[in-house]
């Protein structure tokens, strides 16, 4: 299972890289990494939301481990989006950053999930899972509101239109390279989440064992 995941991911990454560098038109190669990262991050945050809801309903430590894995991977991909975005924007539009709806929403999403990870980091014991799940629900509810509010904000402050609509004017070979890379990124996300999930489970078991151990020390004393 583990080796298969690694092999598939590597193969897809190499194939995607080949498509992006050698087959697709040369302009803006970063596009093939920026956009798939954004889609992957979005899906991971959605998965975190689902896992959190599942935890709130069934209280299974497994759901909590998944929620943690998805959120951490999501923050990594979101960071890639935020770093590659300005790198792409500077040569194409001549600016590093603009408060455009998609960009700003990505930034706020990143802030929300970093806050989520911090909350997990700074709380202790069983309650961590519950309060983190509650925050995850609030965070995910917030994302569409953020997107809407930034769009309204931007339409009221007219500025030069940047780029076209989403997916407009993409050549077929570009599209293929894009989806090849997306598949590769999704496989990589699945792989990292699977590993992270297992580590989280091991940590949970260790904590459980430590709790039982602390009961035993009373016996000695």
């Amino acid at each position, binding site marked *: 299972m583990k080796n298969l995941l690694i092999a598939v991911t590597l193969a897809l990454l190499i194939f995607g890289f080949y498509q992006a560098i050698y087959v697709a038109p040369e302009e803006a190669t970063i596009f093939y990494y920026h956009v798939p990262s954004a889609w992957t991050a979005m899906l991971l945050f959605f998965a975190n939301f689902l896992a959190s809801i599942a935890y709130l309903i069934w209280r299974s430590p497994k759901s909590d481990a998944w929620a943690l894995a998805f959120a951490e991977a999501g923050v990594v991909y979101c960071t890639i989006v935020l770093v590659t975005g300005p790198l792409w924007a500077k040569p194409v539009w001549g600016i590093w950053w603009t408060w455009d709806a998609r960009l700003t929403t990505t930034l706020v999403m990143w802030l929300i999930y970093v806050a989520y990870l911090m909350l997990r980091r*700074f709380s202790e014991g069983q309650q961590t899972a519950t309060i983190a799940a509650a925050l995850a629900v609030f965070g995910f509810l*917030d994302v569409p509101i*953020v997107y809407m509010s930034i769009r309204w904000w931007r339409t009221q402050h007219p500025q030069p239109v940047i780029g076209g609509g989403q997916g407009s004017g993409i050549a077929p070979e570009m599209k293929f390279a894009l989806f090849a890379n997306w598949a590769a990124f999704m496989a990589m996300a699945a792989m990292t989440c699977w590993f992270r999930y297992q580590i989280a489970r091991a940590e949970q078991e260790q904590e459980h064992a430590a709790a039982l151990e602390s009961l035993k020390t009373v016996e000695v004393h």
Partner: protein
Amino acid sequence: MTLWAATRANLIKDLRLEWRSKDALNATGFFSLLVVVIFSFSFEPTAEEARRIAGGLIWVAFLFAAIIALNQTWARELRHHVLDGYRLSPAPASALFLGKALGNFIFVAAVEAITAPLFIIFYNLRAVGDASLLILVFLFGTWALVVNGTFFAALSIRTRNREVMLPLLLFPISVPAVLAMVQATTFILTGDDSPLLWIKLLIGYDVIFTTAGLLLFPTVLNAE
């Protein structure tokens, strides 16, 4: 035990405790006064500029002030474990949340009512748009801050670094609400555009997060 009766009992208890200790009001009021003074000499705007930036400044001041008030809100429930006493009673957990959010709303609104006139004096503000709409912006804006703030304060008291945690959670989630408050206030002051769209956004935000808070609070209260 109805939700409303328990909410009222909590609200009255919180108002009475605050009236006797004045923990939140003193610190918050003085803090916003300091912010107004520091902003006033950091930026020395013309009348036209003042209208453009005052909306942003005033809400940043209130956001920080709200954090100070909210950080104290659960401390008094933890002292002597009174919260355990509440959990033992048959009263609904959401009543505790609602009562506290209402109490915080009153505290923060009181501080705003004192600070806002100072802003007007220091910046020589005069609204070009419909100033009566400002009341709506302040009501819905303040509720947006305190309803989420009360909920996140209940999350942060369970962490090691309580006071720091609250703004870290509250600021990112409050982005759309803060944007709406600032835009609506600015439009009312400058008269450039209608603030109604932003007031509607605030109402929507309030409805969504009040519902989420009421539904999830019992889970958080019994997270132990």
